[in-house]
């Protein structure tokens, strides 16, 4: 099935829960299948990821509206993470876990753009299509997202240092 890993990766990072991510991917593929006649050429992966993204946001608005408005990054809740993903938490360690935590704490709009760029390797143009913003906005969001991630990473590390010591 085309782009299934990409679809799952995006959904998983947006909703931050394994079971919900799978439901969303399934729904998105059914929608893609149903609305295939609406596909007007262009990049099929970007088109599909756009549907995955819309499905993820509809889900969050309906089920977890707080996660869309919470400014997680302003006050890092390090201890709160890991609630829904104990399964993967065990295998991660050190820096990897810190980056994972920091990324989960970023606001969704920065998180999704970083995922699409750094993990999926999409171009600015493709990201602009998926997220439905101008290319200039992609650039500025990436700039702010990377700066925020660096800050959060720093704070997570400090907190981690305190916890260990």
């Amino acid at each position: 099935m085309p782009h299934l890993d990409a679809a799952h990766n995006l959904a998983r990072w947006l909703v931050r829960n394994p079971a919900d991510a799978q439901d969303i991917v399934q729904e998105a593929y059914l929608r893609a299948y149903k609305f295939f006649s609406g596909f007007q050429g262009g990049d099929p992966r970007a088109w599909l990821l756009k549907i995955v993204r819309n499905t993820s946001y509809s889900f969050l608005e309906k089920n977890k509206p707080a996660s869309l408005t919470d400014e997680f990054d302003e006050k890092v809740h390090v201890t709160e993470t890991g609630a829904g993903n104990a399964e993967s938490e065990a295998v991660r360690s050190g820096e990897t876990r810190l980056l994972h935590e920091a990324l989960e704490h970023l606001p969704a709009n920065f998180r999704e753009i970083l995922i699409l760029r750094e993990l999926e390797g999409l171009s600015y143009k493709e990201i602009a299509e998926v997220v439905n913003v101008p290319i200039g906005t992609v650039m500025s969001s990436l700039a702010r997202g990377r700066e925020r991630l660096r800050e959060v990473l720093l704070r997570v590390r400090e907190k981690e240092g305190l916890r260990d010591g």
Partner: protein
Amino acid sequence: MADQFAPLLHAYFDNELDLVHSLELEEHLKRCPDCAQELWSYQTLRKSFRDANLYHRAPEGLEARIRAALPKEPRVVEMPRRRFLNWAAVAAAIAVLLVITWRSLPRPQTDFLAQEVVASHIRSLQPGHLLDVQSSDQHTVKPWFDGKIDFAPPVKDFVEEGFPLVGGRLDYIDHRPAAALVYQRNKHFINVYVWPESEQRVKEQRVTALEGYNIVFWERGGMYFCAVSDLNTGELGQLVHLFQ
């Protein structure tokens, strides 16, 4: 950190910056340790992303689950109903149909020729790679190709139309030597590749885009042409029109 360079630094880091700004920024980086440090920190961040194994691949079973959930009625093709055709077979057929439809779509990432010309275009913009013969005179550029390739590319200067000829270069496209004619439009460079036609290539004019570059292919008088640039399709189309 020089503020005016902040967003450009990201575009540069992501390979999305045009040549002129890239060169400007590289100059700036030599003089500004803050920006250099900033760039270095993004490189470190990217490396962490790769090392950290953050990618959530689809779990096993998800694909089967989606296939099972697809509508049981075929939408595109009316299939004859037969009693021995069980639901599983129908679902499988739809899944196959879905994959085939998807695969038959034009896919920019498998357009090898487009990838090749874009790679060549980017390489040509690196310092010292753009021109083998620098001249705006078509009567200088055209004879330069004599003896270097086994065909005579049509070399024309379109300075009056706003596309001055900058020079020419020998390149290698589509498994054979090609002439590259370099034109300039304001601050944008345009590479026009010319090589003799072969049987495998379609002859229709084709416009595509890859990695932020616009590409136009066309055929004329037994030659293939391909124009590549970061110029918008409208202006690139004007140059193509001049060639035709």
